[in-house]
């Protein structure tokens, strides 16, 4: 196990003066013939799982296998919003732990993930959405989460660019206000986990694609990759949009469809928007980075696809909705659009736990919430693998719930996601 040089202002100063290079964040390794655990997918879920396996359970003979570069999937394509104001107690509890971990992550990983808790505001444009906001707020309060319904005047106070005047169609009747929510540097979270995991001995294999999963006697025995075979009794599927394809290699069928989720960013302008703004009815969420860009997201694409090329109708629809909320922004310019792949489930809850194939675990079905859940999912999956069974936090999200007909109730909140 290697240790990493500590990052700090002094380190910065020292390197600045000596102009000496920094240590590598993570190293290259050849594939070992076998690992105790092979994690498929080098995103925040996979890397966090590896990190907590090593840190919390001293399981360090672990490989993270990534077909491209780390964070190249959803982890590097999401809009980096973090919140815990979910509709159901199990959801809120789960994401609340995630926020807690995010708050301590910079210290924990000695890597500044730049978590800015600017507050998260979900606008209500109708009585029914106002009712849903109150529903969420009341459940959140019972879970000890800072969440409440605020008036249009409060909304204007917190985000002066919002138009709270009387639209016929999408009036702002109030909002769900969640101060601990905010934005974070998604790449930094990926790199921080990778660096910390590598420091504990985890092997991170980039540009290594999983081509098959070996099964003997009904159990997982290894993984085939583009760089060779690995023997292992434990495989964790953390591949989000590609989850069904990896699961199929282990003869597991999932209740998942892959939907592109598009996002976009504008040119930078001087700071004018502090909180994260979400409109469920308009399928739009907006935040301004410290660089001055507006980051936009919307709902998933209208049809399933593994394509990440994005569409024009996303951009036009998005602009229409953003201007409905903030009409002053008509001459801001959209700079870049992209898409990630979301693993959508019928009840908008994740699928996390063991499967019908012993040794094959899934941490998938996160849909549009995956990034927010990264730390707690990693912690929980690591715990599950170490102890052989799912812990309390993730118990409600097992794959078996679909055949049992005990779906989670996030459905109601999904419409006002992110």
């Amino acid at each position, binding site marked *: 196990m290697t240790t990493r040089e500590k990052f700090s202002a002094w380190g910065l100063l020292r390197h600045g003066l000596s102009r000496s290079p920094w240590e590598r964040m993570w190293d290259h390794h050849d594939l070992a013939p076998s690992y105790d655990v092979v994690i498929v997918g080098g995103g925040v879920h996979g890397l966090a799982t590896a990190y907590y396996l090593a840190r919390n359970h001293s399981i360090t003979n672990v490989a993270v296998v990534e077909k491209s570069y780390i964070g190249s999937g959803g982890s590097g394509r999401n809009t980096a919003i973090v919140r815990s104001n979910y509709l159901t107690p199990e959801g809120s509890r789960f994401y609340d732990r995630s926020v807690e971990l995010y708050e301590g992550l910079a210290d924990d990983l000695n890597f500044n993930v730049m978590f800015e808790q600017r507050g998260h505001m979900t606008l209500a444009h109708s009585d029914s959405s106002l009712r849903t906001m109150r529903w969420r707020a009341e459940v959140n309060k019972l879970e000890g989460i800072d969440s409440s319904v605020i008036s249009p005047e409060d909304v204007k106070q917190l985000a002066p660019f919002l138009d709270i005047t009387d639209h016929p169609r999408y009036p702002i009747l109030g909002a769900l206000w969640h101060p601990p929510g905010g934005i974070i540097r998604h790449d930094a979270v990926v790199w921080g986990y990778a660096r910390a995991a590598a420091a504990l001995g985890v092997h991170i294999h980039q540009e290594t694609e999983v081509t098959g999963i070996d099964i003997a006697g009904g159990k997982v025995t290894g993984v085939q990759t583009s760089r060779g075979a690995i023997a292992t009794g434990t495989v964790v599927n953390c591949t989000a949009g590609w989850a069904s394809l990896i699961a*199929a290699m282990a003869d597991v069928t*999932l209740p998942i469809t892959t939907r592109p989720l598009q996002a976009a960013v504008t040119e930078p302008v001087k700071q004018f928007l502090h909180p994260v703004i979400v409109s469920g009815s308009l399928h739009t969420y907006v935040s301004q980075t410290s660089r001055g860009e507006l980051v936009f997201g919307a709902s998933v694409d209208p049809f*399933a696809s*593994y*394509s990440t090329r994005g569409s024009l*109708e996303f951009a036009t629809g998005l602009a229409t909705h953003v201007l409905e909320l903030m009409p002053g922004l008509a001459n801001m310019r959209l700079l870049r659009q992209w898409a990630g792949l979301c693993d959508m489930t019928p009840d908008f809850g994740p699928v996390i736990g063991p499967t019908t194939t012993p040794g094959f675990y899934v941490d998938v079905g996160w849909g549009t919430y995956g990034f927010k859940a990264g730390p707690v999912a990693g912690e929980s999956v690591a715990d599950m693998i170490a102890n052989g069974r799912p812990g309390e936090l993730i118990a409600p999200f097992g794959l078996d719930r679909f055949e049992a*007909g005990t779906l989670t109730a996030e459905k109601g909140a999904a419409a006002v996601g992110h």
Partner: protein
Amino acid sequence: MLVIVCPHCGPRNSDEFTYQGERKPRPEVSTTDAAEWRRYLYMKANQGGWATERWFHGSGCRRFLMLERHMSTNEIRSVSQVGETK
């Protein structure tokens, strides 16, 4: 915006259609069990490559259509009305 060549309406933009995705045959209600029924409701192959899926031309002829579409390129190679193979 894809072009879907509707067998009744000709080439149309995909925003006239509602995506319904993979469809499994409905199990026989008198004999089905929970496992089978919920596979019908929830489980998806979600395969890559060419997939067969159902769309509804709700803003056009209102016919339910079967498409063959490539899940990576979104290329469409066949469209036919449900129940009528091309």
